[in-house]
């Protein structure tokens, strides 16, 4: 891991809304901490729970999944499925000792660049406060 100081956060962002929202954060120079590493996926519905669990089992401190707001999915329905899937996964992970705060799901539209920056900032600060999973 090359995040020397602070938590490693992995972000899965849907191409159409949230990835574009993160781009928007860039174009509007809305700064946020550099801990997050973003992986582009076509849809939040493409994010396999296997990937999330793998992130945590391999020592990531937190995972953010972001997709289009419900109703705005580029593929009409993808985020409705991910909403259900992650509601269950979050409960299971928490039960197994990965606090639900470490696995966050957010809806970010392509125009919400500033909001994306805010979400990441808050999330990173929370994770710094909680400390690294490896250290605990």
């Amino acid at each position, binding site marked *: 891991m090359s995040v020397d100081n602070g938590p490693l956060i992995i972000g899965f962002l849907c191409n159409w809304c949230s990835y574009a929202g993160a781009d928007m954060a860039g174009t509007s120079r809305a700064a946020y901490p550099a801990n997050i590493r973003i992986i582009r996926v076509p849809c939040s519905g493409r994010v396999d*729970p296997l990937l999330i*669990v793998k992130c945590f089992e391999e020592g990531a401190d937190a995972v953010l999944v972001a997709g289009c707001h419900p109703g705005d999915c580029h593929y009409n*329905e993808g985020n409705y*499925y991910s909403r*259900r899937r992650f*509601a269950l996964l979050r409960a*299971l992970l928490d039960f*197994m*000792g990965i606090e639900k705060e470490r696995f966050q799901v957010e809806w970010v539209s392509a125009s919400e660049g500033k909001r994306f920056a805010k979400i990441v900032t808050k999330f990173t600060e929370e994770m710094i406060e909680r400390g690294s999973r490896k250290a605990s």
Partner: protein
Amino acid sequence: MGSDFTQQIRDKAKELLEKGTVECVIGYETGSDGFSARPAFIYEPAEVERLVFDNTCSHNLVKYLLNKKGKPTAVIVKGCDSRSLNLLLSEKQIDRDNIFIIGVVCPGVVEWGWNNRSDQLQIRCNWCRQHNPVIYDFLVGEPVTEGPPDDFADIAAMETKSTEEREAFWREQAEHCVRCYACRQACPGCYCIDCFVEQLDPEWVGIRIAPEENLMWNTIRAFHLAGRCISCNECERVCPVNIPLSLLNRRIEREVLGLFDYRAGMSEDAVAPLITFMKDEKLGIGE
């Protein structure tokens, strides 16, 4: 109960085999320890005397139907087992036309091991709310009134622990796990040709037997059963190192029940909660 149920099952099995309705009856017979039941595959009418039904009939025989595709087969199911029949029907793994279901109103099954009998009911029977089969062609026994809704006390107890304690608990369990996959083999919902755990590309789970890899296996095994687990608890019963898998399964089951008011395997045309959705539901995700 035992001898009466046994006789009814034998009579029915004999009739089905004689008429040629089915090629095989999957039921229980007494094992070589002289008391505990084991699965029996009866092909000849003359053999039906081998069949028994008693409170050691633990196995979920539905799993064996997956090897009988396309062949008319009768199967003996308890309440919980019958739900897995619905699960497999809804997932198009078995063909209703080829199956004759002998449902048994389950009196509960006891804990037993090799040469080791007890009178104590298995834990699954404590939370069981499905003594009556939900699907059958022939019913053995009188339907009983089911108990009040499950309070998931075991889950609540676990949740009183701190996150760190829970993490430590599961890590310790993972250290015991030898990844023998007995849990998977016993589970009627686990029928993938290539289980994710054994796939090499993508290699989701490393081949080394280490806590991280074992946790990955156990987490995803449970999650792949989200909204599909029918609480027969065979996985936990067969676990050689006694990992309390029911806690994982039932944690998800409680969530599925609470969020979607859904119990797996209650009807053969049910749509599992993760492959459907409602637009306006509030699930505490992204809100």
